[in-house]
């Protein structure tokens, strides 16, 4: 009797216009539903409906590509939380960090997760590249996707690097100073680089000044790196990620030919 009541309740919930408007198919374990689970879901349809058996195995993929994407998602979510409390202004940035760490609910946890997942993303993307090299998955027809992957690797490093400045503490400004000093040594484009005198670049008008928004690291740099970190690079990376995933889907998972 109880069961009959539950059956009726289930029917009432599942068989009405609202439910059917959202969920297009049942959950019964049928081959058709297994395919629909993937193709009728905008997020899951990053996958093909069926994959080669070996491509599922962890010892083949090391799960590194997916985990790199997971780390990216973690930095996006925690990053948005941090953006609510952080002002990219030299007078406030450091104080906001302290405020975030000591006063904001879960502020310290969000900041820790943001930082550690960013570091993990760098490690995972390197391991992903190494795995793809070992399995030769860049070979035809996947050459171009490897190139996109290299660009994503560079963007991952740049994302991490631009974020490094934002706490506006001694660690960040000096790490970014050291990291950016190379720009002033660029041949022809940096004022300390070879052939600079023929191009006419100077300390306030060269590659590093373009990066910094001025001759020295300062408040202008903070705003510039903030926008690069929160908007510009994530946007480019998202576009390239879409291409990267779509290409995997088009070309299928790499594997030995049958």
């Amino acid at each position, binding site marked *: 009797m109880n069961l009959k009541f539950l059956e009726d309740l289930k029917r009432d919930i599942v068989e009405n216009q609202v439910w059917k408007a959202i969920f297009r198919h049942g959950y019964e374990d049928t081959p058709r539903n297994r395919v629909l689970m993937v193709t009728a879901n905008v997020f899951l349809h990053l996958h093909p409906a069926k994959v080669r058996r070996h491509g599922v195995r962890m010892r083949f993929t090391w*799960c590194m590509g997916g985990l790199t994407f997971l780390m990216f998602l*973690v930095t996006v979510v925690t990053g948005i939380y941090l953006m609510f409390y952080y002002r990219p202004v030299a007078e406030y940035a450091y104080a906001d960090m302290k405020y975030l760490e000591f006063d904001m609910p879960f502020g*310290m946890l969000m900041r820790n997760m943001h930082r550690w997942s960013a570091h993990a993303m760098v490690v995972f993307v390197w391991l992903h590249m190494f795995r793809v090299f070992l399995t030769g998955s860049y070979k035809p027809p996947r*050459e171009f996707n490897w190139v996109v992957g290299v660009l994503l690797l560079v963007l991952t490093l740049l994302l991490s690097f631009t974020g490094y400045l934002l706490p506006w503490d001694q660690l960040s400004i000096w790490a970014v100073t050291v990291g950016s000093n190379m720009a002033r040594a660029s041949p022809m484009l940096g004022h300390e680089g070879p052939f600079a005198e023929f191009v006419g670049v100077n300390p306030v008008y060269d590659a590093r000044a373009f990066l910094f928004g001025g001759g020295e690291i300062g408040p202008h740099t903070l705003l510039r790196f903030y926008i690069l970190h929160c908007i510009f690079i994530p946007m480019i990376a998202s576009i390239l990620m879409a291409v990267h995933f779509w290409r995997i889907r088009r070309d299928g998972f790499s594997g030995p030919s049958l």
Partner: protein
Amino acid sequence: MAEQSKQRPTVADDKVHTWPHLVRMEFLVALFVMVVLILWSIVIDAPLEEPANPTRTPNPSKAPWYFLGLQEMLVYFDPWHAGVVLPTLIIIGLMVIPFIDINPEGNGYYCFKPRKYEILTFVFGFHVLWVSMIIIGTFFRGPGWNLFWPWQHWDPHKVVALTNVDLPYLLGFRDYWWSAACGAVVVGGYFVVSTVAFYLCVLRIKGKEFLERWGLVRFVITAMLFVTMLSLPAKMFLRLAFNVKYILVTPWFNI
């Protein structure tokens, strides 16, 4: 059944449904990594030092750890080379890998023997050079970018004799232009000799037929990248063994 198992599996047989087989795996791994990440973030706090002060330079000033390989290369090459040219070549070199590697073996599965030289080259560039330079830069460099063991006290007053001299000087050239010419010959000679050696190695290992299929463009690109990669350990050797500062000195740039 016995007859079926003898047949080669077809593509359709080899496939499984993404749901649940792959999605289940992704979910569990993501769950595990998130648990580890959250526990890690609860236990270990992200660093926050004193407020930024442009007038107080810490010694040593280190770049973020993933760039310490580049900072370590600055010991051996000038910034325009170690900081700009070599990173650019690393990125370009990675991008051209699929186009210079025409070996059809190992497309989509692990194997070592048929791709021995490709894998060894990658491991040399990635693990031996990039990763170990990061480890040296992170753990073994202290004030003044001097070498310290991890258990040693970072003494900012450590005295290190600066006895490095340029290679032409070491070879006895004292005149400015003769020194520059000598350096140019050494650098140019390195590239020519190494490229020829690379050619002979490929000819011996892979054979003439392979070289014809490989083509001139692929060979030149690969040789240039390979020889440039080897120039880093070559310069490191000259520095560590003979205290060579520069090989080529010109008014515009030094190598």
